[in-house]
């Protein structure tokens, strides 16, 4: 377990995961809104996702145990922690459902990126999508709801569908196939 944690750079990841939302929360101050919340969540999941693979993927594969549950638990716990920390630092200004949905989708994106580019690049998709979502203009409305799904209110159905699909897809391929070597 200790070795696993060290090979996944868990100490640094966890510290950054906690630090990101706290710093952003403090900086945002009274202007705290869903924009900052999704930025904080995206940043903390992105930094935590830098540790989605070990030093040597080939060596890992020779292990005598199944990687599937480990990978799944790693990704899900990481997402749960990020959501938990954010819920803890924010003074309940943003509905928990929104943060939960964003957490699901972003974790999925992290898994997808790790699968596509390798573990140390797990941060690329979550961060890129958050940045694009923050800049997405509000017109046309339909496209805005798709691109900026992390910023939508909890009652926008399409954002839930997207987040859910990304979560299932991302955690699925990462848990089954692992990070790219």
């Amino acid at each position, binding site marked *: 377990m200790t070795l696993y944690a060290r090979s996944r*750079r868990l100490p*640094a990841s966890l510290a*950054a995961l906690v630090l990101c939302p706290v710093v952003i929360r403090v900086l945002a101050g009274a202007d705290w809104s869903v924009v900052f919340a999704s930025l904080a969540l995206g*940043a903390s999941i*992105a*930094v935590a996702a*830098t*540790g989605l693979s070990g030093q040597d993927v080939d060596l890992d594969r020779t292990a005598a145990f199944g990687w599937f549950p480990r990978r799944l638990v790693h990704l899900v716990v990481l997402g749960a922690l990020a959501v938990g920390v954010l819920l803890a630092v924010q003074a309940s200004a943003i509905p928990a459902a929104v943060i939960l949905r964003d957490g699901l989708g972003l974790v999925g994106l992290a898994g997808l990126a790790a699968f596509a580019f390798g573990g*140390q*690049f797990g*941060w690329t998709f979550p*961060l*890129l999508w958050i*940045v*694009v979502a923050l*800049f*997405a*203009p509000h*017109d*046309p409305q339909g*496209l*805005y709801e798709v691109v900026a799904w992390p910023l939508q209110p909890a009652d926008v159905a399409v954002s839930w569908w997207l987040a859910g699909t990304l979560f299932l897809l991302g955690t699925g391929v990462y848990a089954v196939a692992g990070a790219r070597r």
Partner: protein
Amino acid sequence: MSVLRTEARRTIAPWLLFVLLAVGLGFFFLFSGPWSRDAVAWDLQWTPSVLWSRYLLSLLWPIIVCGAALQGMRDRRSGMEELLTTTPLPVGRRTAKVGLVMGLAAVVGYLVIVAVGLGQVIANDGRFTFTWVLPLLVGIASVVAGVAVGLAVGRLLPHPLTAPAAGVVALVVGVVLQIAGERGSSVEQAVPNRIALLSPTITQPSSPLVEPVLAVSIGQLCWLLGLAATGFLVLAARRWSAVLPAVVGLAVALPLFPASAADNFTDSTGAGKPVCDGPVCVTTLHADWLSTVAGPGKDALARLAKLPSAPTHIVETTDSEYVSHGPGDPTALVVRRDSYLLRGTTGRTLEYEILASAPVCSGAVTDSAARYVVASWLLGDLVTPPHADIYGPSMTTSMRDAWTKLRALPASEQLTRVAAARQAQQTCSGDPYALLTGASR
């Protein structure tokens, strides 16, 4: 060439190019905003088109920095730095190739986006002046500086968290400085204009007639090129003297920059001067439009004359309707030729749109409905607006409701309500639709 090809395949440069093009062109083509439908649209005039590409850098710059940081840590991350120090080839020569390939990818991506915009400007027969050249050079310098800073940061701190952190920091710095440069924003007071101009991006162009003043462009060029030189020097040889170019650039730029954001832009070509036919004036830029607008404009003024405090003349502005300009002259009716409502309209339709023109206040559909009901009342007949479909189905029903309620009243009461509604529209105070239907008195 073959060295470049090898480097291109060993680096993430092709990916960077792909992401820049996908994000940049997607932003301009898939979404609509001031860049797609206003007088300052990126496909109408040369200078605004280039300025929009620099506005887009607020989105692209963090991506460039992030990608370059990722690339900058390649040697260390692959564990071969020690091996490379044993080779006789100087480190500068080797990193120069990586820098060249990454820089080329980013600059090519940026220039393709600029070229797509300028191609549309040529197709739309935009007014050509040379005022777009310097802003474009600043944009390229900004892209190169992004690559250099990213590579240098990646080389100095080869940790897996460096690249995402560099991206986030670049994003935050860019956005804060950009907002600080916007007149009237809350950050403007907190950050001096001279600091805001150090931004790798630029604020939204507020009018197609203005360009950054010479001192601003030259200063930004010095600062960004200094930053780029520092980045590349750090890459080649880690010495403290590497920060010198950035410091020199900063020292040249800061005194050049104007102290107030109001002096950042100028209209050097005089295209904003009015050309008039009686009470109807347009800008020199749109002088050919005067013959089209003069007739309907005069008719509209005549119809408005029956209202108290009616406007007495029409002026054309090219200022963006999405940027607040504060209260204007109440005797002037302001029109925008390049607003999507007016572009290409003539005769009675143009007169109708002129009668309905007012500042955009709340953006509510009922606000627009009220404007067109007032205009219809002045024309004497309920007319469906040419662009009614963009407001959604509630537009026509709201208009018909208000129209029937209004026409059921005695003539003097109709006049009072229309006058009150128009007053509310022009000053952005109160709810014009409620005033029209009598829901608020």
